[in-house]
């Protein structure tokens, strides 16, 4: 499989250089925090141009600009050129030049050795199941992903239970549960990603899986956008949990009670900008809350929580500052509850809230909903 190398985006890169409108900058967390032009999309686009022209090598300053990007897609939302495709390809160039930062190479190594980027033990992955009576056989597979499984076992239980309540009989098979590979893709090592993708697909086919349901937007992106690019015959239907719940609600299969006061929703970048899932979670929240208060940046133009693009591994200070900025915006809504539909966002916002010493309840969307089922 050949995804686009940087040179394939020459047209986009030169077009951005011509245009230079800078509309990408307004909500770009890296640019807002680090300040210099090269941390914004248009600044990196010039760097990409000059690199393609052979006038700059992959020195430390280039790597710094490319890996301090959250790949959150705010620039994509403001631009016809989809700059994050360019920056993903730029990471690939850096990987091929064997200059990927060590902290990111560790991720590849961790996934390879432990099956997850955080180096948790393999056998701990399915501890979230606890005393739940899970299905081992179904052609629909529940795929919680690494973050939910290891960091949020209770949320993961509730998500599984909620799927059950809305009539989705998904199986969970600990033996074949493994990292989706998305973090590996983001390092630029597409060979390692492809290996993971193919291995996952093989085991799923062997188990007769026809559909995957995941609560993780990163896994959802990997399965629905990347796997088909790397595996020609990838034919598994993929869905995000929020989509399934919304469908059930929309079709009258589930009803909710309005048991919450004010809620604010943080749009995960992948769900909102990549898949347009903006209205659906809000309609679900309207069913359970008195009112939804939007943060200043929301929906298609939501600000990244800081958890994207592996910045947390490359530059923990930037990750923390971005998390604090987003947490502040969410707290400013004065909503009683903050919710979102992404485990990385929960983890990052939680960090931000702690850093700014805010005491607001932060709850996973599915957990909010399951409590409100009539």
């Amino acid at each position, binding site marked *: 499989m050949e995804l686009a190398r940087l040179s394939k985006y020459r*047209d986009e890169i*030169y*077009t*951005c*250089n*011509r*245009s*230079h*409108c*800078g*509309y990408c*900058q*307004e909500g770009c967390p890296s640019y807002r925090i680090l*300040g*210099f*032009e*090269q941390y914004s999309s248009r*600044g*990196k686009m*010039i*760097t990409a141009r*000059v690199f393609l*022209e052979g*006038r*700059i090598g992959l*020195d*430390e*300053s*280039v790597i*710094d*600009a490319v890996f301090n990007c959250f790949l959150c897609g705010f620039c994509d*939302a*403001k*631009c*016809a*050129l989809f700059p994050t495709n360019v920056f993903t390809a730029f990471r690939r160039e850096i990987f091929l030049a064997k200059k990927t930062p060590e902290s990111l190479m560790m991720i590849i190594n961790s996934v390879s050795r432990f099956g997850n980027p955080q180096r948790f033990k393999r056998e701990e992955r399915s501890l979230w199941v606890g005393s739940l009576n899970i299905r081992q056989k179904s052609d629909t597979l529940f795929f919680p992903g690494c973050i939910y499984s290891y960091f949020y076992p209770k949320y993961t239980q509730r998500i599984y239970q909620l799927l059950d309540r809305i009539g989705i009989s998904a199986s969970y098979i600990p033996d074949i549960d493994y990292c989706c590979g998305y973090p590996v893709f983001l390092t630029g090592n597409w060979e390692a990603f492809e290996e993971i993708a193919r291995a996952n697909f093989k085991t799923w086919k062997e188990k007769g899986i026809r559909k995957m349901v995941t609560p993780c937007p990163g896994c959802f992106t990997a399965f629905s956008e990347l796997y088909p690019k790397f595996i020609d015959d990838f034919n598994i239907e993929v869905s995000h949990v929020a989509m399934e719940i919304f469908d059930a609600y929309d079709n009258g299969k589930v009803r909710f009670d309005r048991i919450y006061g004010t809620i604010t929703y943080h749009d995960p970048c992948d769900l909102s900008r990549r898949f347009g899932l903006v209205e659906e979670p809000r309609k679900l929240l309207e069913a359970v809350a008195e009112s939804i208060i939007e943060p*200043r940046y929301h929906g298609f133009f939501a600000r990244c929580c800081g958890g994207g693009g592996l910045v947390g591994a490359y530059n923990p200070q930037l990750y923390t500052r971005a998390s604090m900025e987003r947490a502040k915006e969410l707290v400013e809504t004065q909503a009683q509850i903050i919710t979102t539909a992404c485990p990385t966002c929960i983890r990052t916002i939680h960090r931000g809230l702690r850093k700014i010493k805010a005491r607001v309840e932060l709850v996973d969307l599915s957990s909010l909903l399951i409590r409100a089922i009539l």
Partner: protein
Amino acid sequence: MVDWKAIKAEIAEAIGAEKVRDDLTTLVAYSRDWSPRPGEELILPNLVVRPESTEDVAKVIRICNKYRVPVIPVGGMTGMGGGAIAFYGGVIIDTKGLNKILEIDTENYTVTVQTGITIKGLNDELAKYGLWLPHDPESKPTSTVGAAIACDNDSTFGVRWGKMIDHLLSAVIVTGSGEIVRVGYRKAYCSSSGLKLHALLVGSEGTLGIVTEATLRVVPLPEYRWVDGAFFKSIKEAVNAARRLLTAGLPIDAININDRFRLRFYTHAYRIKHGREPEVPEGTQAILFYSLSGDKEFVEYSKDYARRIIENFGGQIIKERDIVESWWKSKHTLEFDPFKQKWPDSQRERKFGAADVGVPPGRLEELHEKFVKTVEKHGLNILGMNIYTERIGCISPSISCAVYVGDSEDEVKRFYEYVKEMSKIAVDLEGTASTYIGDTWRLLDVMEYEHGKALQYMRRIKEIFDPNWIMNPGKKFKLPKDVEERYKKLRG
């Protein structure tokens, strides 16, 4: 020889190492602004500094003045004239780190800001108080208050509220010798005292110093706005109708007249939605777009009144609202689909550039004829003429004579020759060479043609503010020979 490492160290010592960079990626990222340039051109500064306070700026300029090195202040870097490019190298001062709102005075309708805040960023905050700064260039998400002052750029709402010069009440400037000077009249809206030094800053293009703080007049947000448009058989008819709209006392807040070529630029969303070109009456030569704002009841009444005036003046109201809305969204609200036809999707192979001339309203038809011929003479492709109306309560043309420009050195060179010729034509038509881009480097040869002896007075004023010619050298004023030689050596 200049020891840039030593200058960097001195600046770092003065304002903090994290605010000064000289790595290649940083320098490359500051190598362009919006202006048409050859595709592979790379003009690098030697250092980029990102100060956060007036004191930071003063310290940096004092160091640069000591070493006699160029200082290039930049804001959003969306200027169309190359004003932000470091042609002689030197120190780029990125003012976007000066981005705080210092005071919103809701009783006196003023705001005091550090000038690196973007216009949109400021208006987002002001909206919480029911206020706005009605200076509204299309580049507002990126363009800063300081750049709007320094470049005297355009505003959609000029006909009602004027341009930056009408909003700027007072300012703090750091001069070319690093002095911090307050100019203007605090929060007074008018004054007969002293000389209006704050007005000198408007359009000074960073050649006098860096405006670091500004106190601006702001106004209440209107309750309601209606946008309308009409086809006309000539620019003259459109101008006459627009003039009548104003004399009728209607709450007009934007007037924009486009020639027939320009319409296509605004109708991308229409074509996407309907799969066809919009219907334009035969013989249409001009399209008048305008907006009315204020209390809803009054605007609703005014809307019909305005339409009657338009029809009395031979205009045909545009019935397909998608055309009108597409124009408005691409111009003001910048909603994405209509907007992307303009920036950046329209620039896949070439970008647009403009001569930004001004002529009295009665010379517009002549200018248009010469525009079409001059574009042809220079072998460029026409995009169209757009007449903004930017002074309060009158038809006051600020004109974009736009063409497409490719990436080749030859085409870019022809474009700037075209700009110079159009500028001289405008002066000959009792007008001016520039109305929203500024002189920058591109009109250096036209300055004397337009200003004559007055240019010498301007140079003397420049030298009071910047005795060593370090501030944005090569823009607005030709350099003294010795300074030019020094900078050429510096560039190497």
